[in-house]
C-alpha cells in the first residue's frame, strides 16, 4: 500500500514537472528578430538651451542575406533636454526593441565638451546595458556627421568604427583608444586628464580620419594634439609600442621604425622649487627608409642619432603639456601615489607642475638596416 502511494506520488511529481514546461513560454524575453541593434551612439550639442542634447543612434538594419543587400544602416536623431528622454522618443521611431548591448562606440560632438563631463557620461555609466569597454571619441565637425559617414572600405557585417579601435583591424600609432571606464576614471581622478581620439570626416562622408587626439583638463579646457604629438603620446603612455621617427642627421636622413618600446617615468621633488620629471625610454627598431646608402658598421651612430631625435620629440610634447596645463600621462597621479596622503597632495601638485623640468633619457637601439644595407 505504502509503495503504491509512493509510486503514485512520484508519477505526480514527474507530471507536474512536465506541466511546468507549458508555462515556460511566458517569460519576457524578446527574440532577436524583435530587436534592432544600436552600433554607435552620438551626442551633439544644439544651440538651444532648452534641449541641449542631440542624440544620434546608428542602427544596423537586419537583412535576410548579407550578400544581396550589402550593409545598410539607419539613423535616428532627436533633440532633447536629457539623453534618456531622447532615447525614449527614439524608441517610438522603430518597430523593434532598441538593443544597446552592441553599442561599442560613443561619439561626442566637440560642442558638448563645454558641458560638465560628469554630466554627459552619467547616462552611459548608469545604464546597465552599455558596455564599460565601449570606445569614446570626439566627432568633428559633429558627432552626427561622423556616425553618418560610411567609408567605402566598410564591409557588410563589420562596422568601420569598431575596426579602428579594437586592435584587430587597423593598428596605428596615431589612434588613441579610450574606453568608457578609462574616460570615467580620468574624469573623476585628479592628476590625470581624459584624452580621446578625434574622429573627423569630410563633406562627402566617405572617409573617417582618426589621427589626432583631444585632452580635456580639470577646468574643461580642451587641447588638441596634432598627429606627431598623438604618436608621441601613444609612445609615452605605453599604449602603442610602435613609433616611426624621421631622423635628420648632418649628412643622412633616415626613418626608424621602433617596434618595441617601454617608457617609465619618476617624479623627484628634492627641492620645492625644481621638481624633476624623469622619463626613461627603451626603444628597439630598424631602419625603414633612408635617402643614402646605410652602413651597418655605423648602427651605433644611427642609434645615437635616433635617441637624440626621440628625446627632442618627447621633450617638446611634454613642455607643451606643461604649458597648456594638461596631464594625460598622470604625473599628478604618480606624485600622489608615491607620497603618503596628507589631503593636500592635489594642491601641492598644482603648484609644482608648472615649475617642473623634464629629463628624458632615451636609449634607442637600431638592430638592423632592413633587408638592404
Amino acid at each position, binding site marked *: 500500500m505504502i509503495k503504491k502511494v509512493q509510486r503514485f506520488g512520484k508519477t505526480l511529481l514527474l507530471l507536474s514537472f512536465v506541466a511546468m514546461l507549458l508555462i515556460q513560454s511566458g517569460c*519576457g524575453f524578446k527574440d532577436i528578430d524583435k530587436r534592432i541593434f544600436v552600433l554607435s551612439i552620438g551626442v551633439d550639442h544644439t544651440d538651444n538651451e532648452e534641449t541641449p542634447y542631440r542624440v544620434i543612434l546608428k542602427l544596423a538594419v537586419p537583412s535576410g542575406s548579407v550578400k544581396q543587400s550589402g550593409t545598410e544602416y539607419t539613423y535616428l536623431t532627436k533633440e532633447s533636454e536629457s539623453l534618456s528622454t531622447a532615447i525614449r522618443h527614439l524608441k517610438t521611431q522603430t518597430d523593434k526593441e532598441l538593443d544597446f548591448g552592441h553599442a561599442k562606440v560613443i561619439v561626442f560632438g566637440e560642442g558638448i565638451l563645454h558641458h560638465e563631463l560628469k554630466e554627459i557620461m552619467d547616462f552611459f555609466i548608469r545604464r546597465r546595458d552599455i558596455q564599460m569597454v565601449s570606445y569614446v571619441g570626439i566627432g568633428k565637425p559633429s558627432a552626427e556627421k561622423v556616425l553618418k559617414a560610411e567609408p567605402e572600405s566598410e564591409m557588410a557585417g563589420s562596422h568601420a568604427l569598431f575596426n579602428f579601435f579594437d586592435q584587430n583591424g587597423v593598428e596605428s600609432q596615431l589612434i588613441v583608444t579610450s574606453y568608457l571606464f578609462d574616460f570615467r576614471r580620468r574624469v573623476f581622478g585628479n592628476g590625470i586628464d581624459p584624452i580621446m581620439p578625434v574622429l573627423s570626416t569630410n563633406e562627402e562622408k566617405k572617409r573617417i580620419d582618426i589621427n589626432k587626439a583631444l585632452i580635456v583638463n580639470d577646468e574643461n579646457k580642451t587641447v588638441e594634439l596634432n598627429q606627431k604629438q598623438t604618436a608621441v603620446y601613444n609612445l609615452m603612455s605605453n599604449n602603442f609600442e610602435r613609433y616611426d621617427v624621421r631622423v635628420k642627421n648632418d649628412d643622412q636622413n633616415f626613418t626608424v621604425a621602433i617596434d618595441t618600446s617601454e617608457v617609465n617615468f619618476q617624479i623627484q621633488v628634492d627641492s620645492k622649487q625644481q621638481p624633476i620629471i624623469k622619463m626613461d625610454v627603451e626603444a628597439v627598431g630598424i631602419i625603414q627608409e633612408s635617402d643614402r646608402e646605410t652602413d651597418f658598421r655605423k648602427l651605433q651612430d644611427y642609434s645615437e642619432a635616433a635617441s637624440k631625435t626621440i628625446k627632442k620629440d618627447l621633450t617638446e610634447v611634454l613642455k607643451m603639456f606643461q604649458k597648456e596645463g594638461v596631464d594625460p600621462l598622470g604625473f599628478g597621479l604618480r606624485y600622489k601615489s608615491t607620497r603618503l596622503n596628507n589631503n593636500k597632495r592635489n594642491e601641492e601638485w598644482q603648484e609644482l607642475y608648472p615649475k617642473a623640468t623634464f629629463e628624458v633619457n632615451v636609449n634607442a637601439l637600431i638592430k638592423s638596416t632592413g633587408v638592404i644595407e
Partner: protein
Amino acid sequence: MSRYFYYLVFVNMLANVVASVPKILLAKKSEGAIVSMILAIFIGLALCYIVARFFNAFPGQGLPELMGKYMPGWFGKLLLLFIAGAWSVAGLITLVTYSFLLKRFLTPDMPLVFITSILLFFISYGILMKTSSVLYTVEFVLLCCLPVIVLIMIKSYTTPELEWDFIREAMMHTYELPSFSALSASTYLFLGGFNLIIFNRFFTKKHKITIKQILLIGLLGGGVLFTTYFIPIGMNGFEGIEKIAYPWIFTSDTLRLDLGVIERILFVFLILYLAISFLSILIHWHVVLELTKSVITTKRFKFKDINLTPYIIVGVIWLGSIQITKYLTEYQLSLFSSYFFNLLLCSLFGLISLFWFILRRAKS
C-alpha cells in the same frame, strides 16, 4: 583538516566579493580600510583556528549535540535559535543581493519575486538534502567554477588597463585608524569555518591542525581581500569609486576577452557568481534548517510518519525572503548588511566564550 573545511571557508570568501563587502570597504577607502583589512586577516585567522580546534575536539558532533550535553535545555535552545537567526540573515543577504543583481543585469524584464522564487526553489531542494550531500554538492560546483575564477583573476591582473598608480594612491592611505565597519566586513570573509556548528557532524575523524594549514587559509583570504579591494580601484580610479553600487560587477565589465567566446566578462562573471552565491546560501541555510530542527523536537508536526518540521521551516524561509526582497531597497540592503556584520563580529566573541565554557565542562 579535511578538504571540506577549506571549501566551507573558501565559498564564504568568494561569495562576498559580489555582496556588500567591497562596497563597505570602498566606502571607507580614506577612513582606514587598509588597516582594517590587515587586522581582519589576523582576527579572522584566529577565529578560524579556534573554531577548527574546538570542533576537532568533538569529532562527529555539531553544536546542538554539544549544547544538549553540556548546557541547560532552555538556554541551549534559545541560543541555538539566536544562532539560526544570524545564519538565516547571512543567507538572506546573499539571496537578496543576488536577486537584485539578476534583475539589474541578466533578466531585467522578469519580476523580482519570480527571480527570488526560482532561486528559492533550487535552494529549498538543496537544504533539505543530507549534510554529506550538501558538502558533495559544494565540492562539485566549486571545482567546476575554479577554472573560471582563475581565468578572471589572471585576466584582471594582466590587463594593460589596470593602472597601478591608482592602487598605489589607495595604499597611501595606510596610516589611518581602522574603522569598525570595514573591519567587521572584511573579517566576515574568514567566517566560513563557523559553519562547522552543523557540518562537524560530517567530520567524524580527528584531524591535525597545523600552522601551514592556517597559513594557507590566511594566504587565500589575504589574496581574496587584496583582489576585492584593489582591483576595482585599479580599474576604476580611486576618486569616485565609492559611488559605484556594485563595484565588482562594474569592474568585471571593464575586462574584455578580445578573442574569447564571450567578449564581455561581465556575463561569465554573473553566471559564475550565480553558482557561488547558490553554494553560499545553501551552506548557510542548511545550517539554519538543521539548527531549527534540533530545537523544534515536538512530535506534533507529523503526517503519516513523515516529519513535517523541515518543510515548515522551508515555508517560513520562502515567505520571509519573498517579503523582504519586495520590501528592501538597495541602500537599505547595504546599510543593514553593514549593521549585521558589525553585530555578528561582536556576538562571535560570545560564541567563542560559549565554546570555552563547553570545553571546560567537557573536561571536568
